[in-house]
């Protein structure tokens, strides 16, 4: 299968914040589309810098043709060692969709990636490994026509915290929302913007954390 890949990602910074701690970068190459969503944890300038560093590392290593497992390991090595959550560091999700129809995922401390098959949630298996005290989840899968892949930062899951929602604003709810919004002609940009608008709305227009969303849509 030769896929056409529509990818879009954006961030909304915390209300009143000077720096957005989340970064997204999308790189297109002859082989496919690779994107990184970096989520600076800890909230300080250092976390924001680490997120920027992760993005730059990914771009540079991709240009050299490095596989994403190597990129993920390198990003982890550039971070302070794991085990102490109060230390600023950058969580990340790297998504790579090859035109031949394969998807590679590598994540550290970010919410699971959502896969929608024609708008319906489908499972994505990942394997865990520990590297320098941090758990990296990675997986490989095949993509089909009309698949949609959604990745969000940690801030998105906090969006419903101040709302009176018994079941909260969880990945399941985000998945259901994306499924409802999905349509054959709905673009990745539209889906990403909807998700960010929903997160912002749940924070009453004043997000208490950075919000980020990255969406891939696969077309034949």
């Amino acid at each position, binding site marked *: 299968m030769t896929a056409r890949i529509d990818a879009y990602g954006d961030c909304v910074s915390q209300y009143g914040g000077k720096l957005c701690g989340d970064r997204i970068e999308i790189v297109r190459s002859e082989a496919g589309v690779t994107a990184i969503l970096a989520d600076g944890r800890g909230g300080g300038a250092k976390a924001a810098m680490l997120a920027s560093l992760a993005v730059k590392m990914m771009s540079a290593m991709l240009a050299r043709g490095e596989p994403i497992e190597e990129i993920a390991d390198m990003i982890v090595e550039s971070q302070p060692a794991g085990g102490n959550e109060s230390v600023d560091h950058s969580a990340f999700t790297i998504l790579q969709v090859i035109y031949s129809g394969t998807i590679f995922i590598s994540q550290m401390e970010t919410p699971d990636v959502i896969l929608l098959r024609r708008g319906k949630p489908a499972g994505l298996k990942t394997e865990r490994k520990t590297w320098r005290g941090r758990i990296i989840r990675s997986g490989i899968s095949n993509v089909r026509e009309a698949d949609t892949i959604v990745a969000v930062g940690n801030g998105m899951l906090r969006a419903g915290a101040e*709302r*009176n929602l018994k079941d909260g604003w969880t990945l399941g709810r985000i998945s259901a*929302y994306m499924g*409802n919004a999905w349509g054959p002609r709905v673009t990745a940009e539209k889906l990403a913007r909807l998700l960010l608008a929903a997160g912002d709305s*749940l924070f009453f227009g004043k997000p208490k954390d950075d919000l980020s969303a990255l969406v891939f849509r696969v077309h034949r």
Partner: protein
Amino acid sequence: MAYKTLMLQLYRPSGRKRAWMDRALLRYSRALQMLLARFEYQIDALAESGAKISQRKLLALIDKKAGKDLNEFHVQPFKDSLKIEFASLAASYIEQKRKNPRARYPLAYLDPADYRAAVSRCIERFENGETGRRKFESDCSKVIERTGRLRSLYFGRYAVNRDYCLLYDKFKDRFYAKLYLLNSLDGYSSKTVTSGLSLRYLAKGMPAVSNQAGKKRYVIVPLAFGKRQYEDLKKALENPGLLHTARLTKKKGRYYLMVNMQCEPAPVLSTTSTMGVSRSPFGGLNYTICDHDGKFLKHGRIAEQAAPNQILYSLCNRIVKTAWENRSQVILEANGGKNDRMPLRDDRCLSNGQYAALAGILKYKLPEKRLPPPVEVSANGLFFTCPRCSNRTFRNRISSELFACIECGYASEAEWIGSENLAGRLIKYQRDKVPLTVTKQKDSLLFYNRTLGFECTLPQNVTDYQPMYDELSRYLRDLGGAFQNDPKKYAVWKKLCRSPDLRAAVRLILK
């Protein structure tokens, strides 16, 4: 015109007066049941005929013989009221029967003697398969409950020398009711019923109550009531014309006079916000207040603990209080909120019937506080329409508790969506432009609006549509508003006439 009902208790009537009232209630109930039973066939025939029904037509059913037979029930003091109530019940039944062929014929009074026959009929219907088990149980319960239950006695007019009226003692600051319950045979002779009191009629000129010769056919009973009713009666003192019909009823051994009183119109306060009030999935009501630009101000829940027969009034009082504090125009769901698709979460949720009753109460309670009466808007899709972009699709409901618009991304708890939509509806209606469709014809452009009945043709190469707007303006003037039978047309006409600039009020749609 808005009316409200004052509930006035007849304070400690003597044993003799109680006996008279009980007897009047019994006679009234029996007489009404006689009329209903006698003309059941004719009323059913009228229901099936589909012909237009008027009170005159129904009153005409009561022929001379029926009128004479009524006298055997000794209902002369309230014969006219009886006939009016009969016509009213018949009209109501006919309307219900035409909508629902299974509507039951009204039962005013079930004599204990007829109780057996009524139960037998229920059993027969069940055995013939006309009703299911649940309906059979419900019908039997109703029959048992109804047996011996007296109908309230209707006084069709407020008058000093018949039916009923109120009296006032200025020195004691007390109110009394004068009820004509006795016919000439039952009348009593009494030296004076007003000794020690300086009673005046609550009527124009406040004439004094004086002793009249001959048998008295009425009873005078002091009234007991609360502060609010007292305030209303004080208004009636200044304007007795506010008092209209009434009903005498007996509940748990006590007697009440339910007086219909007109609500006095007062200068209406100008509002600075809109308050949408919807049913809450958790019971009670939710409200949202927005300013006249549609900006959200606040929202909240209204829930009250009260006896079942008082709960709606308690909720209404809270709504009125909140609306008054915020100078809000209250907006409600029309038709009791049917088709609003509210996500039900709780058995305590208000039913559509209760919400509709609440709307009826607010229609007089809000004007009492000089607020405009509530506006009712369509409830269709209220709980899955986006309050921000008006995108209406059930896919906006992510779960029973979460709403997230798939068009603009607005997200909120689903329970607030109803009241938010209501609060913004009027503003949306005002902002919506009237559509004018434009189609290309051979060498011209045709502009039209089917609802308004407007059409105008311009050459295709025209760059300025001003001639079309001039024609529209002329058309609106010529219409003149003389089409009250077409509310949609009237609404569009009114909207365009009110707009200072027709161009801004119209939206061109190229087809």
